[in-house]
């Protein structure tokens, strides 16, 4: 008995595909895209895309680069600012360019009674290089729909079409082993908790990265001026703006101050002149993940302290009263 079916007995759709090369190519392409999309390693793009879609949905927005993204846990801040919607809107490698500043403003709910912006300041985020070329702009240009409504519907579905880096495609075999030992967990409020197992001992990688970033690229007076101008505008609109220098290790601070030419005092004074409130942090108190970012425990501890400092400065009596008895959650 022959198993071959006569051609005219095949369903119509198969006959169509058999004769249409365009259909064959499109079906094959779709299969490859789905196969690669669903089997690829989770590269943390999904949570970033969700963040990118945030619009008019927060009372408190925490902004900055990956050090803020990993260092500030909104859950801890909430203990001091109860009832407020707090989101961590930090992106890796961000610079405080105009597009990012606009986006921060866009996350605040215009109807919120108490609007607060908290800026995590790393000197890297005040350089021209990071302001012009960063992951926020890349993500925006790669994924953003022009229409925010379309974005809201589709962005969450697009994780599997994120570009694959060469290292990802090789299954991580060539990835620097010190990065491989990091585990990251993205929280719905935008915080990325990170920890090592076993803890990293050699912090030279990120120190080298910092040196490279500051090579011919010190802190830009233009970026600082634009930022302080924006802070003044926010303040005039009734938005409370706080900023702090991110905790790290002494070697990183030395690079930031010397190669990055960052003068914390003059920055803080310009920031306060613009109406913002500068928070002085004990920079070396919190455990570091890699010489640059805080690890999960360090971030929880630091966020707790940050929440306490902000609540003590907020003038709203309701917030100040409620901020009296929180317990640190680890």
């Amino acid at each position, binding site marked *: 008995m022959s198993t071959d079916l006569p051609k005219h007995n095949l369903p119509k759709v198969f006959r169509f595909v058999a004769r249409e090369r365009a259909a064959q190519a499109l079906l094959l392409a779709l*299969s490859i895209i789905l196969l*690669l999309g669903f089997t690829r390693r989770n590269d943390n793009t999904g949570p970033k895309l969700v963040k990118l879609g945030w619009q008019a949905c927060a009372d408190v927005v925490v902004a900055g680069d990956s050090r803020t993204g990993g260092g500030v846990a909104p859950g801890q801040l909430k203990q001091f600012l109860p009832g407020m919607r707090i989101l961590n809107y930090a992106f890796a490698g961000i610079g405080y360019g105009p597009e990012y500043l606009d986006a921060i403003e866009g996350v605040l709910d215009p109807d919120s009674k108490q609007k607060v912006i908290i800026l995590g300041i790393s000197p890297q985020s005040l350089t021209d290089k990071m302001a012009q070329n960063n992951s926020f702009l890349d993500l925006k240009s*790669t994924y953003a729909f*022009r229409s925010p409504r379309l974005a809201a519907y589709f962005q969450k579905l697009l994780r599997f079409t994120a*570009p694959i880096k060469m290292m990802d495609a090789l299954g991580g075999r060539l990835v620097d082993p010190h990065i491989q030992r990091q585990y990251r967990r993205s929280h719905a409020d935008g915080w990325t908790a990170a920890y090592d197992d076993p803890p990293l001992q050699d912090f030279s990688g990120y120190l080298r990265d910092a040196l490279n970033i500051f090579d011919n690229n010190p802190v830009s007076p233009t970026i600082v001026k634009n930022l302080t101008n924006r802070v003044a505008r926010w303040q005039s609109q009734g938005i409370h703006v706080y900023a702090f220098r991110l905790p790290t290790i002494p070697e990183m601070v030395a690079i930031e101050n010397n190669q990055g030419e960052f003068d914390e005092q003059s920055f803080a004074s310009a920031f306060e002149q613009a109406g913002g409130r500068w928070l002085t942090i004990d920079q070396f108190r919190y455990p570091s993940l890699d010489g640059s970012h805080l690890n999960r425990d360090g971030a929880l501890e630091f966020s707790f302290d940050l929440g306490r400092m902000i609540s003590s400065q907020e003038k709203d009596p309701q917030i100040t009263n409620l901020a009296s008895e929180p317990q640190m959650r680890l």
Partner: protein
Amino acid sequence: MLFNSLDFILFITLFFTLWPFLKGRKNLRFSYLVIASFVFYGWWDWRFLFLIIASGLIDFLAGLAMTKFPRRRKLLLIISVIGNIGSLALFKYIDFGIGNVNWLFGMLGVEYRLGLTGLILPIGISFYTFQSMSYTIDVYRGQLQPTRNILHFFAYLAMFPQLVAGPIVRAKDLLPQLETIQPTTEAQRWQSLQLITWGYFKKVVIADSMAPIINIAFNASDPSPVSGYWWLIMVMFALQIYCDFSGYSDIARGLARWMGYEFPLNFNHPYGATSLRDFWGRWHISLSSWFRDYVYFSLGGSRCGRTKAEGNMWITMLVSGLWHGASWTFVIWGGWHALILSLERLTEWPKKLARLPLGRHLGAILVFALVVVGWVFFRADSFGQAITIIKTMFSFSAGEGNWIMEQLGAKSLACMLFMILCETYFYFGLDQVPWERSRIIRIAQPASVALLLAACVFVRGPGSAFIYFQF
């Protein structure tokens, strides 16, 4: 709407889903094309739809009036040209003009300064204005019968695949095509998918992967002093602008073919040209032929002696440079090409070189190098920056260490080499080999297109607008 945006993917899916049901009746087809094209254009900023409608109405009415009042044809043509050039001048060149007047005031010691208008440049204005003008000029010259159907006219003028970045399709080529609709064949659909896929691949994988490296080079406050670095950056830019623009044209041609229409070839592997004249026969063909037919020939072309012909060519090239952007660097770019074309005509070096062993290949390399030097003016933000880069390129200063990999990155270098290999393939005519006769190749073709499509998704660079949108 950008071809490389997800909005467009949704738009085009919807468009082609409805197209088979709406393409049958003429006016329904025209209306559908016009509405879709206006949605496509208005997605960016709907207010500029009024500009395209106004520009189109001038030419539509001028065309009709020319048949009704043949003795006033010249006046009607002048009104149309003033209307079109006027809108182009207002939106594209007014601030450039004001800047130059202010500079002149400064030179003359006058303290008064004119304020800049800060008008936004409507996307694709240079393309649709030229397309609209060609309609009136062709009617004036008696080469085209004007259409009496306004939907027919706007379906031609605003047809979305070519609306914002060409190819500039002539009315005499497209208007008759739009009148009828032929069912597409399997081969046409296959070719159009190949064109669309290859166009997307060139744009989102090749051009967009090289773009960040090139932008960093040009934005650096302290530009690299290494000669080889700038040669590589400029070769990358040459390939980027080629892939970006020809990619757009390929997508436009593919989309039109899928509908059942044919747009002219806009790029024919220009970097394989063996003379600059040959280059201009292969690069942005629809624009260069527009300038030849409507500017060069209108000035008298080569009919009035050698010197006048040279002058006409120079004017055409300088205007072509200015068409690309309101900046002196674009005019200098046009001037650079005019200079090389003049030298070519004077010395006939491409012909002489071609007679030598390997001379043709040497000529192609030399022409490519000359074009690359010209691109410096095209890409540079200022004349000073262009001169600094050209000086560095010819200083032959060497770099230290592994600067190629460190400063240019593996992906952009891989893209550059891939495109050089592709263009070499076409240069040696390997595309003329009848590969399709091989059964294996025939079977592998859908797989290769599928892989290119998957690469567009997973290997794409950071998205950016098409370079020619700004023109």
